[in-house]
């Protein structure tokens, strides 16, 4: 067992319609080898033993790829540290005696379900609006190598495609904008020949759905890029802007 003592200030909210509040929890015996979520596990274990309601938070793969974990830790999405998710945040980044704020993502489009868990279905709806290549399953497609793709384009498309849909961009953006999320998908598919035929329709449809969901507007503060656990670049937002502008100007 470790020896760090911390004070957590955690957002507790019983349900979607309840009024929440910050509750203080002292935690001791925190080891620096623990991940942040393991530290919360220890706290929850304690709460259950005491007959209290454990803190609800989303998590699944615990290796930074599923995008399920969230948490606004000490004023930053996924806490301090760059290019990592909350599950990859380890307690060695904190020191004995620290006070740590733990809050849910704050966005109209991400209503709180309970405590720190939020509903990110808005992202799925944006994806369903156009985040795909319209191709059916078929055993008779052209060979994967029939269409060479410049390595640079493939690499850039990959960089965009690494988005895990965690919502840190929205949570971080002072405007609550989802541009980085939308841009990542639009940009990935706009860069690849397979996605080009419907790239205009895609940009229009995804942006329209994004606006419907109640996300804010991009004002290019660049905060999303800094906090993105996958380091997705603003360059992709610019590409979305280009796609969107040309689509708007040329649509029938």
């Amino acid at each position, binding site marked *: 067992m470790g020896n760090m003592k911390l004070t957590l200030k955690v957002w507790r909210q019983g349900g979607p319609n309840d009024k929440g509040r910050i509750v203080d929890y002292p935690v001791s015996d925190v080891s620096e080898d623990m991940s942040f979520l393991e530290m919360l596990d220890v706290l929850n274990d304690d709460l259950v033993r005491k007959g209290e309601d454990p803190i609800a938070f989303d998590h699944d793969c615990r290796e930074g790829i599923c995008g399920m974990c969230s948490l606004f830790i000490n004023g930053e999405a996924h806490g301090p540290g760059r290019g990592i998710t909350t599950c990859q945040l380890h307690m060695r980044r904190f020191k004995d005696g620290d006070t740590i704020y733990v*809050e849910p993502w704050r966005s109209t489009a991400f209503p709180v379900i309970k405590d720190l868990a939020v509903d990110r279905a808005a992202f799925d709806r944006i994806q369903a609006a156009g985040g795909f290549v319209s191709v059916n399953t078929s055993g008779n497609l052209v060979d994967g190598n029939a269409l060479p793709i410049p390595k640079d384009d493939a690499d850039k498309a990959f960089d965009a495609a690494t988005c895990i849909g965690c919502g840190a961009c929205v949570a971080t953006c002072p405007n609550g904008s989802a541009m980085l999320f939308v841009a990542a998908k639009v940009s990935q598919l706009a860069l690849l020949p397979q996605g080009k035929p419907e790239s205009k329709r895609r940009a229009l449809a995804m942006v329209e759905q994004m606006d419907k969901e109640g996300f804010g507007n991009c*004002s290019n503060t660049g905060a999303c890029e800094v906090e993105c656990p996958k380091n997705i670049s603003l360059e992709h937002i610019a590409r979305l802007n280009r796609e969107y502008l040309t689509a708007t100007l040329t649509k029938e």
Partner: protein
Amino acid sequence: MALTGLFLISFLVVHATVNGMIFFNDGGVTFNEWAHFFGTNLLIRTMEIVLFLGLIAHVVDGLMLWSQNRAARPVKYAMEKGGANRSWYSASMGFLGTLILLFLVLHLWHFWVKTRFTGIEGYGVDAAGRENLFAVMQQTFRSPAAVIIYVLGCFSLFWHLLHGFKSAFQSLGINHSRYNGLIAMCGTAFSIIVPALFALMPISIHLNWIK
């Protein structure tokens, strides 16, 4: 925002150029000549209307974004470390814009209203016999309060431009690793030079560096 912003930026270039004529330090003769030309040319007068429309569009657009963005996060964070991931001014464009707008009202009252409506005949004519807008400046900047407000206005403009200039390019989709440095450099240079030029005017008139 980007289009109207860039349009307003282009206006700043014209405005700074014309006003820069005071630095000829010839008792305002060159400046008044240019001002007269700009005040009477039909094309420029038409552009003035366009300019106002552009400004209004920029302000209205800004207000709409501000209200939408506010609605996007009804519950604020108890603890938010904005400084960790963004510059304060990039996240304060609305606030800086409001300061600039307030300044603008005063500024228009000082000069534009006078030249267009109430008239500046009372300020006499300059050495070349033209109506003397330069004298209006001299009169206005006699007050230290006015100078301070103008300098603060220029500061707001500086921060606003520092983000706004390069942000406009990003919004229009112009982002390329090869040119981003250039855009950022131009943006920073512009944000420093233009507001500095403007700020220098009230200061130098007040301190009688130019007469």
